[in-house]
């Protein structure tokens, strides 16, 4: 499939009073046309920063690209001027933000806010833009769009506002839509509605989506592929099935084990011990080693490269090195692997899910 975005060896730092924070430390991934890539990881893992870097929305004064490229349409986004970037933002790449309560301008009617990118990037008259905005509101399921165009954000509920934010993001039929935890600030029933809407929209319009979340339930629901980030790096990337049913990195194991499950009768929910490393002084080797019970000597000394699991599945852990001893993943992970045809624990005779 055609690649629409390529992030190559991206390194980015923030300059703070305390020193240089290495927020992104060599991120590689690509986005294919029409797919949804989920980036998961805990707070501070660099998932939001990565996408803000793609949009170039980080403060110029305190952030710095140290290395790498972001290739879009043959252009390296890290090298573009502000003016050139303004032509891409909102038109080719657009973004949905986390908190709909604060992401709309309180003193501007929502009609104006939706029409703004249309008038900016498309050569249309105001009346035409108005029609397009009304159509967008219909598209995101807003009742009585004509009347609501004249209203202000405070006259809408949280879920409705997120629909408006989505309408703004879709205004110019972007090639890439970045959704930065779009459901985190919403309550559960609204979350489900917004997710349904996004899935529905993806069928209607041919847009690639980068979906950032820390909610694995959401990932399973929307994504085609998943990238797991930890302390400024991608530690594992693969299709949804590969990540959920044949995970290889101990961090992914930890994440999946800490997901509440209805099948398991355990009383206590698993939590990954310890805290993420301080990126002012990132650790040598595998950043997760200090929290991992599977860590080996080499994890403390050398950064693991990506090992290939399948054509679509890569993981950065020394456990996949041919010389590494075989370890037994946590029980819940083995349960998952039993259902995955290519994994070492696959049990087809025992009621495993066959393709």
């Amino acid at each position, binding site marked *: 499939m055609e690649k629409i975005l390529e992030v190559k060896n991206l390194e980015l730092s923030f300059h703070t009073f305390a020193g240089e924070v290495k927020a992104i430390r060599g991120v590689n991934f690509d986005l294919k046309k029409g797919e949804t890539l989920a980036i998961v990881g805990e707070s501070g893992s660099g998932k939001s920063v990565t996408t803000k870097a793609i949009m170039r929305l980080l403060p110029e004064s305190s952030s710095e690209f140290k290395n790498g490229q972001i290739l879009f349409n043959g252009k390296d986004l890290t090298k573009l001027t502000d003016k050139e970037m303004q032509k891409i*933002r909102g038109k080719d790449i657009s973004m949905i933000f986390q908190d709909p309560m604060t*992401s*709309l301008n309180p003193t501007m009617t929502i009609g104006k806010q939706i029409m703004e990118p249309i008038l900016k990037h498309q050569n249309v008259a105001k009346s035409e833009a108005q029609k397009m905005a009304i159509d967008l509101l219909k598209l995101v399921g807003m009742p009585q769009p004509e009347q609501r165009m004249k209203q202000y954000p405070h006259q809408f509920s949280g879920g409705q506002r997120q629909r408006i934010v989505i309408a703004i993001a879709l205004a110019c039929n972007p090639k890439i839509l970045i959704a930065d935890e779009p459901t985190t600030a919403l309550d559960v029933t609204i979350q489900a509605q917004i997710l349904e809407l996004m899935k529905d929209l993806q069928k209607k319009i041919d847009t690639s989506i980068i979906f950032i979340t820390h909610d694995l339930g959401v990932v399973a629901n929307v994504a085609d592929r998943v990238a797991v980030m930890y302390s400024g790096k991608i530690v594992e990337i693969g299709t949804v099935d590969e990540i959920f049913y044949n995970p290889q990195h101990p961090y992914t194991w930890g994440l999946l084990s800490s997901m509440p499950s209805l099948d398991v009768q355990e009383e206590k929910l698993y939590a990954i011990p310890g805290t993420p490393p301080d990126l002012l002084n990132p650790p040598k080797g595998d950043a997760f080693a200090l929290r991992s019970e599977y860590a080996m000597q080499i994890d403390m000394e050398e950064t693991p490269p990506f090992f290939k699991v399948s054509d679509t599945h890569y993981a950065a852990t020394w456990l996949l090195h041919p010389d590494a001893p075989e370890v037994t993943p946590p029980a819940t992970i083995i349960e998952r692997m039993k259902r995955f045809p290519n994994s070492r624990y696959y049990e087809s005779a025992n009621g495993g899910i066959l393709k």
Partner: protein
Amino acid sequence: MAKYILKRVLYMILTLFLIATFTFFLMKMLPGSPIASSPKLTHEQLAAVEAKYGLDKPLPVQYGIYMKKMVQLDFGVSYQFKGANVTELIINRAGPSFLLGIQALILGTIGGIILGMIAALRQNTVWDYGSTLIAIFGISIPSFVFASLLQYWIGVKGGFLPVGLWENGWQSSILPTIALAMGPLATSARFIRTEMIEVLGTDYITLAKAKGASGLEIAFKHAFRNALIPLITVMGPLAAGLVTGSLVVEQIFAIPGIGEQFVKAINSSDYSLIMGTTMFFSVLLILVIFIVDILYGIVDPRIRLTGGNK
């Protein structure tokens, strides 16, 4: 809206009533009286004059008479200017003060907004420090010091503009306006700077950037209106400051304004003129505050004053 305005008007009347009452009794507590300062009068003559003006009656009665007349918009005659009607005195003197006040308010807020915007958009550069410096001067130097400096450097040394008085038409108003505007200018510059910086960090500004808006569009289309809201809040007190500030500035520039007359009236215990001027200032201030509240609703749709938003 009509209901809201009616309610506000009733409150305004109540406020004016309270101000009138307080001022009346406070004024009576001041030592001296308008006629006591004439040493030539004998006791009999004094008593006769007091009786003529009703000053011999007990205080509550005087108060009653005063309030009754005030309701009919009759503020009596001045003790100081023989037989002159207070209402006429105020109206004749209000022109220069009004011009100064309005000009200073416009110069102060617009100048302050420009200065604050520059400081916020060029944060931590020479522009920002320069505007901060001006603001600090504006806040810390009292208007009368600033007025004297202006008189000396521009009026006397430079000779570009009249040093004082009200005889060269609009030209005479320039220096006093600047002197008067410095305070509000400094205050609004600081307010706008702080607010703009805060607003520029909000999520909706990031969203505007993500739409592809340019720096100027973000500053003026998105941020400015939101940054204006707190400034409107202080507009009322700023306008009040202009009224009191003009008392001093008019004295220094020898402008025949209402402030100058007010100071004279207090010095000579001209009861009716003090009361009249106080009420005039109060009405003015209450109106300004009312206008500010209406402006609020225009700038911020969340505070539309219609009551229900259906």
